[in-house]
């Protein structure tokens, strides 16, 4: 991981802090720290040392004092129109640096926004002036936000909120500022570094996807097996309100695609009764992708949860009030993030919100629905258990496959699937959004995807194919299926439809390729089972053969 720090003031020590935090996560660390106040030169000169270093992520931190100069002290010595043109000049300056960055690097740029001081020389009249001092800085921040919306590689770090969180009087130490031009007090650098890790974690894949929760004294107060349905604290008492609050924060993360699961030692029926029937319960059965309520070892349960959801233990955060359980999991699975819950539930929400582990740098429509989809998956498995024959199960699932040609809206998801699908993937070719866009605009290629629905709900866009067209032959460049829907014959439906499409276009044969990797064994026999024949390095399907559509699913073309 190569990290660059460009700043307008002394930030000694920050790089060392990031180095330690990266090492703790097993991330290799190299850094480039620009000379004092050299950020503009480094960004504008395409031959600069900074560009030679070619960082994966750049933090650009400019203080409002440096940006405004004398105008920081005397904003009212100039007219409101002059203040407006001053700010638009500064925005141009920032945009110019961003454009240079994008020209020279294909990585992420994180720009800190600007602190709005609590003070104004205008005192209580501050809000009455046209384009006043505070409004100037708000305008800068708004412009930065707009820039980040229009530039995929640019993110805004809310430095102004960092100051609100810890307090202007703590962060800005006048002595450190006057002695060493230090604008973030030394004892707050660790907190600042922690915030910046919010960007490094998703880039390095060390962010987390799933929260595993205990029940007694974690989601409600008391012990259901002893205190009973009416005896647990949930809702009205001060403790009860804290648990409701905590559940609301969890639900709000679930709404953003974080997966929830339960790992609790209890009688299943007692605990499920609360989850289903308690009037003040916020999280319900449908919010949980896996529910382990039993008397088994918690570590064993946790492992099963990871297997069931099909995620790594290093994607899991574990919440349990019991110190002994915390120790058990920490010892057995150090890769799980075991949270040290305080014994006072009032702090649970704050502890959850302080975690910077759930960040992503891009969120697709499908990510948001993830929590829901995993919970539907659990219902499917339970349904499957109740039906012994696999064909009957598939028949009763009412699977619908909607085939879609790519569109600007679908490109991020298509790229994401090529980047992270390992198991059912014929060629495991990884494509960035820009590459998918190029294929989509090239009439020699077909880029398509499939949305899969069934009686339990929408699985989202879970299949992708890319075809390279020649006169008489179509070559399958990419064919993949998300692990979410493996084992339901969907791949046969998609491929059959591609074949029918080819035949209708006068194509004589389809060529495909299987490139083995450590992980794509599930796709190994797909082509031969379907009826492809091996010729040298390729698998070939002659289109004068009959094309069968699987009976248990409906395929639609959109």
């Amino acid at each position, binding site marked *: 991981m190569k990290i660059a720090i460009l700043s307008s003031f002394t930030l000694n*020590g920050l790089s060392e802090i990031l180095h330690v935090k990266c090492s703790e996560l097993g991330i290799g660390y190299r850094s480039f720290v620009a000379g004092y106040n050299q950020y503009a030169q480094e960004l504008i000169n395409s031959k600069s040392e900074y560009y030679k270093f070619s960082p994966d992520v750049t933090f650009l931190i400019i203080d409002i004092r440096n940006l405004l100069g004398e105008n920081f002290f005397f904003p009212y010595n100039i007219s409101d129109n002059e203040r407006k043109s001053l700010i638009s000049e500064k925005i141009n300056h920032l945009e110019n640096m961003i454009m240079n960055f994008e020209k020279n690097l294909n990585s992420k740029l994180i720009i800190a926004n600007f602190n709005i001081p609590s003070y104004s020389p205008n005192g209580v009249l501050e809000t009455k002036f046209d384009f006043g001092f505070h409004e100037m800085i708000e305008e800068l921040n708004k412009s930065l936000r707009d820039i980040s919306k229009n530039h995929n590689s640019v993110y805004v770090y809310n430095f102004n909120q960092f100051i609100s969180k810890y307090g202007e009087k703590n962060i800005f130490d*006048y*002595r450190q500022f006057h002695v*060493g031009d230090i604008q973030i*007090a*030394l*004892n707050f650098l660790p907190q600042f570094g922690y915030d910046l890790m919010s960007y490094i974690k998703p880039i390095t894949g060390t962010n987390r996807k799933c929260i595993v929760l205990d029940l007694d004294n974690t989601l409600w107060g008391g012990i259901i097996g002893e205190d009973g349905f009416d005896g647990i604290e949930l809702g009205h008492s001060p403790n009860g309100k804290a648990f409701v609050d905590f559940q609301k924060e969890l639900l709000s993360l679930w709404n953003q695609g974080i997966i929830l699961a339960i790992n609790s030692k209890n009688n299943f029926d007692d605990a499920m009764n609360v989850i289903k029937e308690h009037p003040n319960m916020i999280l319900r059965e449908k919010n949980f992708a896996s529910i382990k309520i039993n008397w088994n070892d918690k570590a064993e349960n946790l492992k099963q949860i990871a297997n069931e959801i099909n995620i790594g233990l290093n994607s899991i955060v574990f919440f349990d009030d019991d110190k002994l359980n915390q120790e058990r999991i920490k010892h057995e699975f150090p890769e799980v993030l075991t949270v040290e819950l305080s014994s006072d539930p009032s702090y649970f929400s704050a502890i959850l919100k302080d975690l910077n582990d759930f960040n992503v740098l891009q969120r697709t429509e499908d990510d948001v629905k993830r929590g829901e989809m995993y919970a539907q998956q659990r219902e499917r498995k339970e349904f499957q258990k109740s039906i012994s024959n696999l064909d009957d199960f598939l028949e009763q699932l009412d699977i619908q496959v909607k085939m879609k040609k790519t569109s600007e809206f679908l490109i991020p998801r298509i790229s994401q699937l090529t980047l992270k699908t390992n198991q059912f993937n014929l060629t495991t070719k990884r494509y960035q959004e820009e590459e998918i866009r190029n294929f989509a605009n090239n009439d020699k290629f077909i880029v398509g995807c499939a949305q899969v629905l069934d009686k339990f709900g929408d699985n989202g866009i879970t299949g992708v194919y890319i075809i390279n067209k020649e006169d008489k032959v179509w070559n399958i460049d990419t064919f993949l299926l998300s692990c979410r829907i493996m084992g339901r014959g969907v791949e046969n439906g998609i491929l059959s439809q591609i074949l029918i499409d080819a035949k209708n276009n006068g194509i004589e044969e389809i060529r495909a390729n299987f490139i083995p990797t450590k992980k794509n064994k599930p796709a190994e026999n797909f082509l031969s089972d379907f009826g492809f024949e091996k010729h040298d390095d390729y698998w070939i399907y002659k289109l004068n053969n009959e094309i069968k559509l699987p009976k248990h699913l409906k395929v639609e073309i959109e």
Partner: protein
Amino acid sequence: MINDVNAIVAKVFSIPESEVNDQSSPENIESWDSFNGLVLVDELETHFKVKFTISEITDVKNVADIKRHLKNHNVS
């Protein structure tokens, strides 16, 4: 209390405590630059629960000066 100063100086500049004495200064401790000097101020303030003025900070030439200023803040 005031004897803790040597240990703090040693920790901040990453040197053995045995090498720290009243005459220790930026002249004879290589890692004592202006930035680490501020880190030292921060550590001393946290440890002794005092706040130095800016002229006290800039006046310090060696460890003896630190102890003299701490005494002015009633650290004994």
